[in-house]
């Protein structure tokens, strides 16, 4: 059934279809609609879940940790300050190997207070060990939720789905709504062997000495690495049931492109429009959307970018003292394997619109600068 719904509600529908058992969340703009609709769904029985209305995001993640440890499928959604407050528990979910799914609506971090989009909230959680998937459309957002559960439960790792504030969260699009019945064909019921169970009592997460800690961390990395194939396979399985797949990355007109713009989130769609326009002008340009940020799809990215002559990375985020975060990741993917120039562009922080003309500016700059001096280029800063 197709419906015109907002991005936030596409999250809720994904959660409902995935038959989540415990939801715990705390409201924050621009995530609120997700939990409002989920509350309603719980209230009217559309979804058979317990919704723990906690007093903070820290507790929201902690409640999910408890629920997931008990062997129930658990979900939360948040944004920005909320995600940052969760930080400690994000680590906990990873160390405890809990397949929790979290939707984060990308919102800039204060001060000053900002409710508008940028990626610094989720990207500053880069190293905690959550899988991160950046979505571009309402359909993709909805579809990624059951995918995320399937991936998470197979890897015993938590997965974060990321969507842009307002540009996606509050934007209405046509979505082919998935149902529980359909999803059951794709996502089996969650029945973990190891869980909090009085019939098989274990103590989880107690003191681990230097003699065991590294091995446990090694296994997390191993799961991440295995994740590349699992994500690909799950995506294919999803496609078999629903006819839609999204891949790890999405190259657009890259085959003969001399310049490739690397994007993530909603900027990707805008960029494609600009690419089409520039192609019409005869410019050999393409774009690459990074969908899965963690685990980072090194090989896939290398495959696409190594054929280009120049790579420009658009970052709606900044790692202060270094540069754009995607930019760093792309560099490391190509490091030592090619000497294509890679240039980073910082744009659209705190919700500033990344319009087609901004992208055109970046593209022109990227093509024009043969040897850019600064590998970090700020776009649109009023100087």
């Amino acid at each position: 059934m197709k419906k015109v719904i907002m991005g936030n509600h596409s999250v809720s529908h994904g959660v409902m279809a995935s038959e989540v058992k415990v939801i715990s969340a705390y409201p924050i703009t621009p995530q609120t609609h997700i939990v409002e609709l989920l509350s309603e769904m719980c209230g009217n029985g559309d979804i058979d879940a317990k919704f723990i209305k906690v007093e903070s995001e820290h507790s929201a993640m902690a409640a999910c940790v408890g629920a997931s440890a008990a062997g129930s499928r658990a979900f939360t959604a948040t944004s920005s300050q909320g995600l940052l407050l969760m930080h400690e528990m994000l680590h906990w979910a990873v160390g405890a190997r809990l397949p929790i799914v979290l939707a984060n609506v990308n919102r800039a971090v204060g001060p000053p207070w900002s409710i508008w989009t940028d990626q610094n909230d989720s990207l500053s959680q880069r190293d905690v060990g959550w899988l991160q998937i950046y979505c571009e459309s309402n359909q993709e957002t909805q579809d990624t939720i059951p995918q995320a559960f399937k991936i998470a439960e197979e890897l015993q790792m938590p997965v974060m789905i990321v969507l842009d504030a307002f540009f996606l969260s509050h934007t209405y699009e046509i979505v082919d709504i998935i149902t529980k019945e359909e999803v059951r064909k794709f996502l089996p019921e969650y029945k973990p062997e190891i869980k909090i169970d009085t019939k098989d009592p274990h103590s989880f997460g107690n003191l681990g000495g230097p003699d065991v800690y590294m091995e446990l961390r090694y296994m997390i990395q191993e799961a991440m690495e295995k994740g590349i194939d699992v994500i690909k396979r799950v995506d294919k399985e999803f496609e078999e049931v629903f006819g839609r797949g999204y891949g790890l990355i999405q190259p657009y007109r890259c085959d003969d492109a001399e310049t490739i713009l690397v994007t993530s989130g909603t900027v990707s769609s805008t960029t494609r429009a600009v690419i089409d326009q520039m192609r019409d002008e005869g410019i050999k340009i393409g774009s690459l959307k990074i969908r899965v940020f963690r685990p980072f799809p090194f090989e896939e990215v290398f495959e696409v970018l190594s054929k280009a002559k120049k790579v420009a990375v658009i970052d709606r985020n900044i790692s202060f003292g270094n540069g754009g975060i995607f930019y760093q990741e792309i560099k490391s993917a190509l490091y030592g394997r090619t000497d294509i120039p890679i240039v980073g562009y910082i744009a659209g922080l705190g919700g500033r619109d990344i319009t087609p003309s901004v992208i055109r500016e970046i593209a022109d700059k990227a093509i024009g600068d043969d040897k850019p001096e600064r590998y970090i280029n700020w776009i649109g800063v009023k100087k």
Partner: protein
Amino acid sequence: MKPAVMPLEELMGSGHLACQGCGATQAMRFALKVLGPETALVIPACCWAVIDGTFPHSAVNLPIYHTAFETAAVVASGLKAGLEMRGDTETTVMAWAGDGGTFDIGLQALSGAAERNDDIIYVCYDNEAYMNTGIQRSSSTPVGAWTTTTPVTNYKREPKKNMIDIMAAHSIPYIATASTAYPHDFMAKVKKAKSIRGTKYIQIFAPCPTGWKMAPELSVKSARDAVTSKVYPLLEITEHGQKLKVWKDFEPTSVRDYMKVQGRFRHLKDEEFDQIEKDVEMKWQRLVAKEKMLASIPGLIE
């Protein structure tokens, strides 16, 4: 031989990592004896996070979830919800935290769980400081006490936080204090808590010989003296905060005697002891008056 005075089953075993004479460890053993095997525990950062033992070993034969310092209550809420959603409605979920994890850093999550009246037992073993990190003050540390962050030159001047009143303000169905010196009282309270739905809060006075600079054999004695000197009244608050019962059936003992065996109070002078004694008596009087007052409101309790 007479029948055993408490259940024989031991869900907590030997070999654990508690110090000699640890009250928190006794408390756990007592609680588990009445809760039985259909119990799951949540333990945040605190001494008990260590006492339980080292991965892959545990001294407690129950499912335990070790969690972050401030999350005991809410992880318990989540756990309970998770268990229920996968069809296990029988398991009792007990959060087991220190005073730091309760009075301080975990207060928010505990308040949340209590306000929601989530169906958990929350036990705070109160050893009156952050012991696991090396005896720093908490808001449960009593006035006059030495800790590593309240050195004798600047000992704790602030009174202990009244956590019981805070919990009572949440109108939860059951609140009690206990002491390791009165295991049967404690076990009865845990048993009662198990039979009630909603959030149950029990705060057990659990001496820490290491942190109190006291000989370990005095652990139980100090737990007893705390009660009989009225420093740590044993009470129960039931009917969602409407009914208060204070235990008074004991021979009163001296506050000073209670404090004097503990090195953490050794620096106090006579005048300071005088003041503390007065405060203890005043608080006791207030407590008893409150008990009377609540009992006298007609029609409040059927």
